[in-house]
């Protein structure tokens, strides 16, 4: 019995030694909406970020051959969980930088209350609210996805070009929905369109029929939904279709989720269009696509490219900064400012050599060139998608 106990104790001790990372590891936080309304999108985003981490470790590691470790946290797409996850990453895990959080509300809360005071650099791959540009962040908040200000305006112009001049707008009452809806309204009305209904709704309610009836009473036959396709956006879409409130539906990037196709059926979604950011065709995008497909990922999944780029750029910045937390944000600008030797997705070994030699590098990512403006934002390209088979298919590029 005693022997057994000793053996058990030894095993347990051994296990803790294995579980604790070696001192030399460099940790980054990977905060995502693992649970909550974008839970259906989060896995591809997290997998693509981990692909970047894996490529770093497979090609010589970070700094002096150390291992880059991604610590995953659940920001649950809301401000409270975003703050909790960021606090844990910054104070307990002592991360050098953070990829994420995923949703705008989480980004704003985590940045304001945790990462800006701690001086930790964060790169959100999907926090798209225009509010994020305005953060007083000492240059520590970046994103690899364009602000919704671009998307809302581009979508408004595209709808007007397609002769849709009268719409009703339903948006989720959070930072994401509100930001997108307001940019959309501004541009749509500014260019002669008519908004025949404009209303926020709370997420996760069971019935939106009265909301939809209110919106439909304005007489528009097109409903623009700025919500999440796996959350209340799905419920709204279903109830609008079932009751015939509207005939045409247009969604923002949040609505481009598999959930509506899976739950409502593609045959019912023939009049559903959705805008989403797309990567411009580039070698880098192809290289990412190939690598991601090899590990079983879908390169076309929404925000997969931006998540990958965010993680890869954070790794480059850490390498450039020599692991110094305070220098990460300045280094992030240096590795992708349009000047220097181009580095494409996955070219870690090459980048590492150049950084060691002191040569300037310029990351050309899968989602774009990512030359940050002074607010840490990137410009974007969008496309309008329609449902085709069990997938989304590009209808037209939008500017």
């Amino acid at each position, binding site marked *: 019995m005693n022997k057994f106990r000793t053996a058990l104790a030894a095993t347990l001790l051994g296990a803790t030694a294995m579980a604790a990372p070696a001192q030399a590891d460099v940790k980054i936080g990977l905060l995502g909406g693992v649970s909550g309304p974008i839970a259906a999108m989060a896995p591809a985003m997290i997998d693509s970020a981990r692909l970047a981490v894996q490529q770093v470790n497979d090609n010589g590691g970070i700094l002096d051959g150390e291992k880059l470790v991604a610590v995953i946290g659940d920001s649950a797409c809301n401000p409270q969980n975003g703050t909790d996850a960021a606090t844990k990453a910054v104070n307990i895990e002592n991360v050098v930088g953070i990829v994420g959080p995923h949703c705008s509300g989480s980004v704003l809360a985590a940045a304001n209350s945790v990462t800006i005071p701690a001086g930790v650099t964060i790169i959100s791959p999907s926090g798209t609210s225009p509010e994020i540009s305005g953060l007083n962040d000492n240059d520590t908040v970046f994103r690899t996805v364009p602000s919704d200000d671009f998307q809302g305006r581009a979508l408004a112009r595209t709808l007007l070009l397609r002769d849709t001049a009268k719409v009703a707008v339903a948006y989720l009452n959070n930072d994401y929905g509100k930001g997108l809806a307001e940019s959309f309204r501004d541009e749509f009305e500014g260019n002669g369109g008519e908004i025949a209904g404009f209303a926020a709704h709370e997420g996760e309610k069971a019935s939106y029929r009265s909301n939809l009836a*209110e919106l439909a009473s304005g007489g528009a036959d097109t409903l623009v939904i700025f919500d999440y396709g796996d959350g209340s956006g799905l419920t709204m879409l279903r109830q609008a279709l079932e009751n015939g409130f509207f005939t045409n539906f247009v969604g923002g990037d949040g609505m481009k989720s598999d*959930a509506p196709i899976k*739950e*409502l059926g593609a045959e019912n979604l023939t009049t559903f269009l959705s805008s989403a950011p797309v990567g411009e065709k580039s070698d880098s995008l192809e290289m990412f696509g190939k690598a991601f497909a090899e590990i079983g990922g879908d390169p076309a999944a929404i925000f997969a490219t931006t998540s990958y780029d965010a993680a890869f750029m954070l790794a480059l910045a850490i390498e450039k900064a020599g692991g110094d937390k305070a220098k990460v944000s300045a280094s992030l600008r240096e590795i992708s400012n349009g000047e220097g030797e181009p580095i494409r997705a996955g070219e870690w070994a090459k980048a590492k050599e150049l950084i060691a030699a002191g040569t300037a590098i310029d990351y050309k990512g899968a989602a774009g060139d990512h030359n940050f403006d002074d607010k840490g934002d990137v410009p974007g390209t969008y496309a309008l998608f329609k449902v085709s088979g069990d997938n989304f298919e590009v209808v037209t590029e939008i500017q």
Partner: protein
Amino acid sequence: MGALEIINFYLVPGIVIGSIYALGAVGITLVFSILRYAHLAHGDLATLGAFLALGAVTLGGVSPYVALPVAMVLTAAAAVMIDKAFYAYLRERPKIVTVMASLGVALMVRAIVQVVWGVDSETYTRGIVRPDVWFGIRLRDRELITIFAMIGLVLALHVFLQQSKWGKAMRAMSDNPDLALLSGVDNKKVVMLTWIIVGGLCAAAGVFLGLNYELKAMMGWTMLLPMFAAAILGGVGRVEGAVLGGLIVGIAEEMSTLFLPTEYKAATAFAILLLMLLVRPTGLLKGKVL
């Protein structure tokens, strides 16, 4: 706006969601009056019931209506086990301890649902159902079934409480547990019976919510506040009050969009709850004040 439009898009959805709230509120009111605490895991127990029915639908290939009794039995068993594992131990402590424990149970139940079924939205059947039109009123079969099932279940419960020996024992314990014990009522059995009924009703609320809308891991939790508002509005301990309260809360939520900006819809139940506690804490039908 015509009368038909008000009926179709405000009243009918209000009655359907109100019926679902009512099923939940009846359970809450029973726990409130017999066990004397607010059971915060009620919503997540409903989620569990809805997903158990989904399990029966996907594994057994049966219709959700066949899965309903299966889910009710399984959820009742789960409720009894939760009581034995967590609440029984705390029964002699101050009630607030049990209330907090039930919050913990709520998180655990939800986590189990998320681990087993994932966090995506699910439905019992794929596709959309357009309503049938009866003299201008748009109704779906599932909406009628929801309303009639609610009425049927509540009537059965009412007869049980009024007529049967065990129903009377439950009412006796609700009035005065010590006196009931002295009169030979087995408190433990009554507690178990309460959980069986509450679990079954929870599952019914969850299944009907999933049937009319979608199944989500958070579906029950977001229903908790309206269900509590309904139970208190009707009067704690009053089954018929809970039904009335549920319908009023459901209809008020949908109708509120006529007068208020739509983002305040979710706050309607909360406003009703506050107002009732201030003006008439016994509820519409003179319930208990705890």
